């Protein structure tokens, strides 16, 4: 693999992340953390690759299985709670009692 290319991708993504996050209003810091936490569950990709291989050893199978469960837990709960939180953020409605 071309490591140099990978490192450039990493560097650019890291800077992009900095610029994007800096603009997030402090109001939304908790949902933001839930969202990035959910995005970190991208490791589910690696977990599926490990557990789906044809000639994997028993160790790989077991580790892969636990990894898929753990990553999916992170993924599902991360996205669901972020959405649940954001639903609550409302502006003042003029019609409110």
């Amino acid at each position, binding site marked *: *693999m071309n490591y140099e290319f*990978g490192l450039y991708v*990493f560097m650019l*993504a890291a800077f*992009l*992340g900095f610029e*994007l*996050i800096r603009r*997030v*209003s402090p*109001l*939304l*810091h*908790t*949902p*933001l*953390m*839930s*969202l*990035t*936490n*959910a*995005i*970190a*569950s991208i*490791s589910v*990709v*690696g*977990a*599926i*690759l490990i*557990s*789906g291989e*044809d000639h994997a050893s028993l*160790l*790989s*199978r077991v580790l*892969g*299985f*636990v*990894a*898929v469960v*753990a*990553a*999916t*837990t*992170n*993924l*599902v*709960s*991360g*996205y669901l*709670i972020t*959405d*649940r*939180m*954001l639903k*609550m*953020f409302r502006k*003042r409605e003029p019609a409110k009692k």
Partner: protein
Amino acid sequence: MSVFQALYLVAAALFILALKWMSAPATARRGVISGELGMLLAVVGTLMRHEVVNYQWIVVALLVGAAIGVPLAVLMPMTAVPQRTAISQACGALASALIGTAEYYHRYPTGFTMAALSIEILLGFLTFTASLMAFGKLHEILPSRPITYKGQNVVNLGLFVIAVLIGIALVINPHQSGLFPAYVALAMTFGVLLIIPIGGADMPTVIALLNSYAGLSASAMGFVLDNKLLIIAGALDGSSGLILSIIMCRAMNRSFTNVLFGAFGQLQTSAAAATEARPVRSASPEEAASILEDARSVVVIPGYGMAVAQAQHKIRELHDMLVKKGVEVRFAIHPVAGRMPGHMNVLLAEADVPYDKLVEMDEINSDMAMTDVVLVVGANDIVNPAAQNDPNSPIAGMPILQAYKARTVMIIKRGMSAGFAGIDNELYYQPNTLMLFGDARSFVSSLVKEVGATN
């Protein structure tokens, strides 16, 4: 370019859009949907890859994970959001660490790949145990006070150096598989030891930092598996966690090293005990309610105590009643109030407080002198004037909400015990301060009753 690579590319773009849309409340939900879609494409793309041939266990694992994840998200009360984030982080980090372990025994990679793998495993296992410890402390299964002992930093640093040396040895010769379990054990131990000296008030910084580690671990996995999507998503998460913890550190005027190695709140407890009882003025709910009704502007300062007492709904009722009487009510939010970044905002949003009433520290401080009443609910260190006046105070230099400038300060508190940092608060003894003794929720509900009675 095969189909899965195209899907990965779109997924990476969707993650970037997710963070972009997250910046404002109006577009934030679109951001979540974009993130969900990106993840869906990533999973579907991976399942389509020709290397993946055994589906049955993957499907079972996905279902089990969803079965744990859904209740974790739906049943958790909003006050438990910091704990949930910590436990979810532990799961993500565990996944990444286990994949690293499986890769190691499967391929014994060499050179750069092994270096990336050792970083993935170190950060993964470290974040796993550290997040579990953070969960324990936040959920109060473990004592939330910092635990310190002599030579703690030397022990921690020593352990870390040994772990790094083993990591380097493994990179030089990956076939020393006897070293591998030791490496894993050291990483996990280090994670535990890292959190032991961290107190509750420093949790926002630490949770954000652990978030960053989990992302970096996923990114390192991207280098191991030669997967650009993992590198990008991990890097986005890594930089987001890092910048949030920097924001938190700035809000406390402390450095990273001070948060991680400073063990805040242990040394000062003795100093607080030495101060003798000084007279304070207290007020009953009736008196407090009438002061609130006569005010033109009220600023509420919530803290972690509001979360513990679950007082946010009652506070919203009080807000509604006062607004109906023509009182201007706003909420002043300190960046580190609560146990994670933005904790107070979420709780108040849950209670239906409109978010344009939540004002940030810099903005509200200039209005404090013109404010009739400040009502402090379960906050302490973030309104302590010692941060500005006393250079020897452990919180010296920390930006505070300048509650002391208001005409009247009312503080709801259980008793006169010192706050988390164990520092006495000058604000309590000011002549214009009224202490409202009681549980935050029951006191606010009696305030609501009193204000309602005079209708």
